[in-house]
């Protein structure tokens, strides 16, 4: 399943020169984390669904996404190993968790529990179709080397299979007389548009926030530095206080 933020990752990577292995590796790692997050979504669906027949489908889908994540991670690792990169700026484990959440909009609850079953199937279908489209586009992008393009092509193909599974399930429901399938489709379209918008807005606010904080830093921090006492100490102790 595609992460909501995939589009922006692609935009960035398209601007890069294909010789920049390290940057390409970073982007591939981001894809890996996004696929990993999607696998967690599908695994949660497998745990939570009360439709027993779908349990296996969700689990298989999760296993596919875990495999995609691993393919991206391995390819990113190979790119780094083939370059003369000596950078050891290694992220902490908690930062990686934050990136998985950020890339996938993972909230406190799994996305499955925020939607009903029908909405979730539509969500899978729409997201996978978007991923298939993006990966197909990337697989034709000559900025990437042939191995990377082959990887994108493979993933696109498999995302296509996921779309078919979801479509099949919806079709089965339609034949069984389930109503509101199209309504659910429209709702998920809106839901995704909303989250995409939120994602882009978040990026704008992040940039504005950075600017404001940088201003605060250059205006207020020097003033405070004049009065700065290194060995501050709190002697009072109150269990209800946050300080």
């Amino acid at each position: 399943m595609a992460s909501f933020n995939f589009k922006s990752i692609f935009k960035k990577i398209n601007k890069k020169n294909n010789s920049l292995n390290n940057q390409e590796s970073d982007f591939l790692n981001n894809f890996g984390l996004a696929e990993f997050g999607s696998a967690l979504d599908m695994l949660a669906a497998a745990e939570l669904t009360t439709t027993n027949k779908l349990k296996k489908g969700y689990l298989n889908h999760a296993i596919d996404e875990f495999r995609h994540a691993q393919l991206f991670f391995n390819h990113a690792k190979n790119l780094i190993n083939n370059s003369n990169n000596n950078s050891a700026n290694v992220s902490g484990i908690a930062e990686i968790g934050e990136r998985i959440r950020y890339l996938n909009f993972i909230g406190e609850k799994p996305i499955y529990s925020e939607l009903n079953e029908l909405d979730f199937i539509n969500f899978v279908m729409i997201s996978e179709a978007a991923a298939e489209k993006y990966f197909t586009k990337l697989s034709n992008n000559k900025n990437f080397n042939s191995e990377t393009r082959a990887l994108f092509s493979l993933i696109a193909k498999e995302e296509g299979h996921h779309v078919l599974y979801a479509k099949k399930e919806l079709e089965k429901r339609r034949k069984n007389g389930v109503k509101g399938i199209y309504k659910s489709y429209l709702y998920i379209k809106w839901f995704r548009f909303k989250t995409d918008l939120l994602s882009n807005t978040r990026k704008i606010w992040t940039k504005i926030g950075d600017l404001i904080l940088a201003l605060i830093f250059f205006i207020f921090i020097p003033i405070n530095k004049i009065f700065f006492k290194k060995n501050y100490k709190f002697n009072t102790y109150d269990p209800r206080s946050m300080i």
Partner: protein
Amino acid sequence: MNKYVLGISCYFHDSSVSLVKNGKIISAVQEERFTGIKGDSSFPSRSIEWCLNSNNLKISDINYIVFYEKPLKKFLRILNSSIEYFPKSRSFFVSQMKRWLSEKIWTKTNIVKKLKFSSEKILFCQHHLSHASSIYYTNNLSHSCIMVNDGIGEDQSFSIWSGEKNKIKLLDEILFPKSLGLFYSTMTSFLGHQINEGENKVMSMSAYGNNSLDNELNKVISISDKNIFHQNMDYFEYQFSLYNNFSNKLTNLLGDPRTPNTEFLNKDLVLSNDKSEKYANIAYSTQKITENIIERQSNHAYEIFPSDNICLSGGVHLNCKANNESFKNSKFKNIYINFCPSDSGGSIGASLWAWNNVIEKNENILNQDVYLGPSFDNDFIEETLKDLKINYTKFNTSKELLSDASNYLLKNKIICWFQGKLEFGKRALGNRSILARPDNKKLSQKINNEIKNRESFQPFASSVLYEKAEEYFDIDSKFKNSYKYMSVVAYDNKKNTNKLSGVLHVDNSCRIQLVEETDNSLYYNLIKNFFDLSNIPLLLNTSLNLKGEPIVDNPIKAISTFLRSNCDLMYIGNFKIYKND
């Protein structure tokens, strides 16, 4: 009437929740187990929900919620660092403020809003006091020295406490930016591993090195008579940077840092080139200096609070080799390290602190159960297996299950073992484990390379029958209370080396878990059955998870892990499933 305290730790790393009922921990779990995100630092909503639901409680039944640290105190430390290191601290300030202003600073409000809980009943313990409580109050000791060593709390990186008659009192401390834990984390990052995840890999690498870089590392950090240790902050940037831990000066001193995931050992499991040798020597000196400093710290602790007992907590004490080396010649007679020395144990410490200091003032209860998480009955597991259309074999009795599993272990099979309640903490202690026989080096290499995708230099732990341990390892009675949590390494005593080839590290050490029947009867009897068949009273034990994932909590995650791994069989409750199914 029952009284309940809910402890929470989050927003740093390893979020967790613990629930105390009348002084006894009845449930505890890390959020990562539910979300699948390793080291998850987010607000532990799912853990709280599970703790309440599994005990049929509502949030209104909780008397107090305790957070494991003082957020505003930490915020002020960060602000002070930004001021002190101006203007180099710009990106540190911006990224920290974003995190703090969007979430961390509102900790109390978040708890009130998310849980609909009265703000009057929310307490805040201190970070190091939570650590100290997590070990002192779980052991029911009347008199003990307590030593906490981690990266950073609010502003403390090291502290010594007295534990007397159920009261904990601060005796000495070392404040940020000086920090043994952050020194070790910096070297972890220098050696190409993830911070808060790869420290154990540095410990493993150190066994391949020698002391040729001791002089260089001594310029970075060294023992000092006056202040325990001296740390030259010119070599570090963690005090004003979130992303770079070390400065160019360290690179000038030690050369290029190691690129992550590059080969360290070759196929014959020896150092692959000169660069690997250099990194091994850096790891060796890092480990050695750490051990020496901890020894110095413990001597200082004994000087200011002599006692027979010392309790150790904080992430630094996950270093099971240092725990052994630093206390070998210690004056303390009993060393206590439990199942949760890292930040996830903060929730346990905070809730026990509140129980012993705010609610009941004179009652300390022994709290040593590590199996505090979710469990699943056989009916639920069978239903899941049916839903997933997985063929299985059902055992009617535990005896049949144990006999079957031990027979397959004997036949060199690698098995996934999912039983009973989930363990709390970093270590798999026999309920969510991958197991194999310990005398087959090929099996351990297979687990490293094909199952866990770990680096080939990483050794495995072993679970040993308590009464047989001395026939295989040098057992130090000082650590008798710590061995059961895999907190200390022990060395091969050369009596049965051939039976340990899959679990012995290159320096002949092994992280051991001594298993008694009273602690985990099913697991004990599995090892016992294997012993009856093989005359080997131990098993190779590694956690049931794959690379980058936390230990599994439920049957679906366990099955997903099993299907993606190269393990041969899985025993889940009273059921056996095969790969070719």
